[in-house]
């Protein structure tokens, strides 16, 4: 009979050390640049304060239940000895189809990490520049010239102008990337409790402290330029929060809100399904899942919602801020805000340094979470120890990141991965998870499993939400998303060789992961593991 019990697929089972630790690790995974840069732009462009209505709807009816489903499935799969999405989904979805679909749960964080650490290196680099004198923006020059200085610096730092740019000159960005990657690998290699958890337990509070400092500076800006009295903090807050209820009649607003919640909480990313798999049956997942989501919302609404656009408005006014929002998250974060910091007087560079250090912490707590699922998958599919799994990870990420840092022209390479893997596939993964949880594993069984060890009860009205509302919500958002974006994405791939190379890389990585899974299946069957979820997990020892 297959051993359906608490059987590990590799030696030395990993485990979190504390409950607050796993909550902060999951929250750290969720809190990233998007909280500070994407959220305010989305809100301002979609009704301001009125955006919060579809936003909270999406949180309650989509974000929170999908998060609960992931935590629950993860812990269940962990009890069967699996800590990666293929193994866990194979158990939940009862077979090979689910198992192979689960490869997306490894591919997504792995592929996204190729460019995420690159962006993280930008944050570290900008932090360093602000610590050592700023970006050279002349506040006495016309604003257009200041913006051009910031833009020129950014394009040079990230290699936007031409491929291979960063492998010449001062190698500055490359050096920052090497440091960033090394820090990530160091903490991931140290394991869950001594590496990721230990890091997140101080990084998250430190991030909050940095955010509070910047927030206080922004809220006390008053009216810096008496010749433009309308450009003040109150009007800056109003730019973001004054509601335009007409936006609620536009389906695009509801889609934007759902998309923001979705990407902000990091559901369907393959991370929660790994992180929570190290919990035991009697460890709560309901309150823990809700707490990590709430933590993410605090950062998003109170820091992202109060700092970014307010600061921009005070110095650049309506036109400048609208233009900044139109440039997207990275334009706002790396072009507009440097101009804003330059106007903050003698302490502007200090605030800039604190801001980019905070973004660096937000990014690294996310990138750590992107490496762990692959490590777990290599360990359990190939039967290698953590050291050897780390070597495989470093090799793959080295190639992926090298290509990302080489093909930097117009950001086509990494934004292709971001579109197809970091956006499109995440929708697929989230839908797959939710449908397997609610319809294959079964919603009643799923809720019973969620309530094992739970410190709070999931309200009864969530049963139909899990089964019907959330999947439907997700499918509608996905279809609308495809309708809006897929055509231009496909055209982009057809026209851009860098995009084709990016997709080729994704395909190669996918093939490698499929091979690992084939090897893993053989090993798991030989070890007597219950891959297809035919039996309940054995009771754990007290």
């Amino acid at each position, binding site marked *: 009979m297959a051993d359906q019990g608490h059987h590990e697929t590799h030696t*030395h089972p990993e485990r979190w050390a*504390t*409950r607050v630790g796993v909550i902060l690790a999951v929250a750290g995974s969720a809190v990233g640049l998007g909280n500070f840069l994407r959220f305010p732009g989305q809100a301002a462009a979609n009704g301001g*304060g*009125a955006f919060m209505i579809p936003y*909270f709807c999406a949180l309650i009816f989509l974000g929170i239940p999908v998060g609960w489903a992931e935590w629950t499935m993860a812990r269940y799969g962990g009890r069967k000895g699996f800590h990666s999405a293929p193994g866990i989904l194979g158990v939940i979805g009862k077979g090979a189809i689910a198992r192979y679909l689960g490869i997306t749960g490894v591919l997504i964080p792995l592929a996204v990490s190729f460019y995420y650490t690159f962006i993280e290196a930008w944050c570290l680099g900008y932090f360093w520049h602000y610590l050592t004198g700023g970006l050279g923006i002349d506040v006495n020059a016309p604003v257009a010239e200041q913006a051009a200085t910031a833009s020129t610096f950014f394009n040079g730092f990230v290699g936007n102008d031409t491929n291979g740019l960063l492998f010449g000159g001062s190698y500055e960005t490359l050096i920052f990337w090497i440091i960033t990657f090394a820090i990530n690998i160091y903490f991931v290699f140290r394991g869950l*409790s001594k590496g990721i958890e230990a890091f997140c337990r101080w990084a998250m509070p430190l991030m909050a402290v940095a955010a509070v400092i910047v927030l206080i500076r922004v809220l006390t800006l008053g009216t810096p330029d008496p010749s433009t009295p309308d450009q003040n903090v109150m009007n800056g807050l109003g730019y973001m929060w*004054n509601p335009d209820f007409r936006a609620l009649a536009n389906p695009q607003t509801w889609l934007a809100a759902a998309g923001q919640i979705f990407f902000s909480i990091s559901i369907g990313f393959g991370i929660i399904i790994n992180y929570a798999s190290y919990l035991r049956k009697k460890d709560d997942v309901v309150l823990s899942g809700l*707490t990590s989501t709430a933590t993410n919302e605090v950062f998003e609404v109170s820091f992202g919602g109060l700092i970014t656009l307010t600061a921009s408005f005070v110095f650049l006014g309506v036109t400048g801020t609208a233009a900044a929002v139109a440039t997207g998250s990275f334009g706002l974060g790396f072009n507009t805000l440097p101009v804003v910091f330059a106007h903050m007087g003698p302490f502007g560079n200090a605030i800039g340094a604190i801001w980019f250090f905070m973004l660096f912490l937000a990014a690294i707590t996310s990138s750590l979470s992107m490496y762990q699922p692959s490590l777990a998958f290599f360990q359990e599919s190939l039967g290698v120890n953590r050291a050897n*799994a780390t070597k495989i990870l470093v090799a793959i990420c080295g190639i992926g990141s090298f290509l990302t840092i080489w093909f930097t022209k117009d950001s086509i390479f990494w934004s292709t991965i971001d579109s197809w893997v970091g956006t499109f596939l995440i929708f697929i993964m989230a839908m797959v998870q939710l449908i397997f949880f609610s319809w294959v594993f079964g919603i009643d069984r799923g809720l019973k499993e969620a309530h094992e060890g739970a410190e709070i009860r999931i309200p009864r009205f969530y049963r139909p939400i899990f089964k019907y509302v959330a999947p439907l919500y997700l499918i509608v958002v996905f279809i609308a998303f495809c309708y809006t974006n897929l055509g231009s994405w496909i055209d982009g791939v057809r026209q851009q060789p860098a995009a084709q190379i990016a997709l080729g890389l994704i395909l190669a990585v996918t093939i490698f992961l499929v091979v690992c899974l084939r090897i893993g299946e053989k090993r798991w069957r030989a070890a007597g593991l219950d891959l297809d979820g035919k039996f309940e997990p054995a009771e754990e020892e007290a």
Partner: protein
Amino acid sequence: MTTAGWIFLVVSLTSVWGLAIWCYARVLRGGDIEPPPDSLGG
């Protein structure tokens, strides 16, 4: 900022902070998870 803007701001901040504080208060009152064996693993 308009009155409606203030309302949305205050309600949103109160909601997220209220939820987070309630959650952490329950977490800290509740039990902890079993710590791991003292090894790096792998």
